[in-house]
């Protein structure tokens, strides 16, 4: 009986020592250089080698992660968030604080402002329609309203407003990832500074046609008249190709431009409502 115990101990002892020695020497002998960060990250990982992350083991995960240099899409189920945090810390990948940005839709051509001139019947995608023609309205620059941008947003921050036929950004959900900017074939969405108290002023139009043509197709088009540029005390507005553009790095949110725009193409969002707005609208009618 006793020798069973003895042999048990001896066998395991031998194996253990063998393991230690062999591993040590093999590791010495067959050393290969690799990014030291890989093994550092690997150390932090649970070594469960479960493959749950979709990579071949913790090492594969570490390698892919170090190579990618970016935490996006990497997650270890076993270790959970704490492990991922420490990995991010080790790699110095903690997202540095940036100026908060938000997506804005630079088109106000709602169904009322911009009457339909034809009916589109292809695959309901902006890219498809844009490749074919100008779109269902007379404006060949504006939003096509088929929601490619909505489809790509992973944060549910965009939605199509059925009344206007335009996408709307939920400023609290938008992470300024820029996916929608890439997706829009008309270049309508732009990432702009979120602004103090979420206040922003921008030209909600991208129509580069001459004034008359632009106005004919859409009530609220920028006609490139230049009044805003003249009114801006900070030189933040530039007119190019019959279109005004407000540089958000220069804009001080004074809203002088909003007041002078004859078509109402300039939008000021999240400002407290002031009676001035009404005069503004009267102005439009007067013209």
């Amino acid at each position, binding site marked *: 009986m006793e020798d*069973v115990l003895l042999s048990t101990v001896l*066998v*395991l002892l031998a194996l253990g020592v063998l393991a230690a020695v*062999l591993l040590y020497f093999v590791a010495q002998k067959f050393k*290969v250089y690799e990014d030291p960060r890989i093994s550092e990250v690997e150390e932090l990982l649970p070594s*469960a*080698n*479960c*493959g749950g992350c979709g990579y071949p*083991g913790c090492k594969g995960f570490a390698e892919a992660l170090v190579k990618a240099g970016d935490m996006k899409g990497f997650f270890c189920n076993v270790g959970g968030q704490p492990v991922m945090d420490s990995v991010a810390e080790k790699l110095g990948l903690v997202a540095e604080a940036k100026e908060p940005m938000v997506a804005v839709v630079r088109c106000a051509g709602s169904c009322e402002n911009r009457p339909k001139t034809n009916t589109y019947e292809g695959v309901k995608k902006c890219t498809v329609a844009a490749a074919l023609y100008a779109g269902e309205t007379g404006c060949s620059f504006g939003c096509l309203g088929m929601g490619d941008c909505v489809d790509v947003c992973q944060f549910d921050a965009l939605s199509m407003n059925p009344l206007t036929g335009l996408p709307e950004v939920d400023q609290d959900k938008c992470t300024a990832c820029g996916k929608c900017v890439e997706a829009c074939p008309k270049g309508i969405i732009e990432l702009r500074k979120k602004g103090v108290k979420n206040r922003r002023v921008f030209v909600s139009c991208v129509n580069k046609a001459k004034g008359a043509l632009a106005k004919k197709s859409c009530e609220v088009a920028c006609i490139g008249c230049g009044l805003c540029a003249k009114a801006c005390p900070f030189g933040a507005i530039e007119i190019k190709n019959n279109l005004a553009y407000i540089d958000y790095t220069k804009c001080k949110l004074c809203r002088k431009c909003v007041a002078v725009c004859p078509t109402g193409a300039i939008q000021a969002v999240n400002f407290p409502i002031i009676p001035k707005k009404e005069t503004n609208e009267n102005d439009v009618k007067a013209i």
Partner: protein
Amino acid sequence: MGYMEIIIGSIFVNNIVLSRFLGICPFLGVSNKVSTSLGMGGAVIFVMALSSVFVWLIQDLVLIPLGIEYMQTITFILVIAMLVQMVEIILKKLSPSLYQALGIFLPLITTNCAVLGVALILVQNEFTLLQSIAFATANAIGFTIALVLFAGLRERIELSNAPTAMKGVPVSILTAGLLAMAFMGFAGLV
């Protein structure tokens, strides 16, 4: 047991993943793409064949003579872990390309049930050395076949529009279930 029976039996009838339920974690984990699943399959075949030899040697030359068969679990896992780690280190040095194709899957294999499970089953069956190798290799091939089929199915499902609630893991597992059901057709072949 004849070799034919061992081979057909382990590849189809008692498929290691679909019928014995071993190695499910890598089966679910490394089956996103057919190409990766092939690499994984290759690595499993290699490790299983190799470890079956060592396991058999330990069982027959050490554990049985000393009458300490109860130490199977500990010794086998230690040996397998050590073996795999060494192969990985050596492969990385000697053949980086082979390492890229197969080696990167090695760590994943150490700690999955399939290798240890097969080791335990083969000593339980008291196979000869050659039978052990045949058994282990056939099981690994069975694993690879199941894995590659499954990866193909997953690639396809990825492109179709599964219901939101089923997307991802649930529909994959369901597919594994139906695949297992299809494999039951082989029941009774040996």
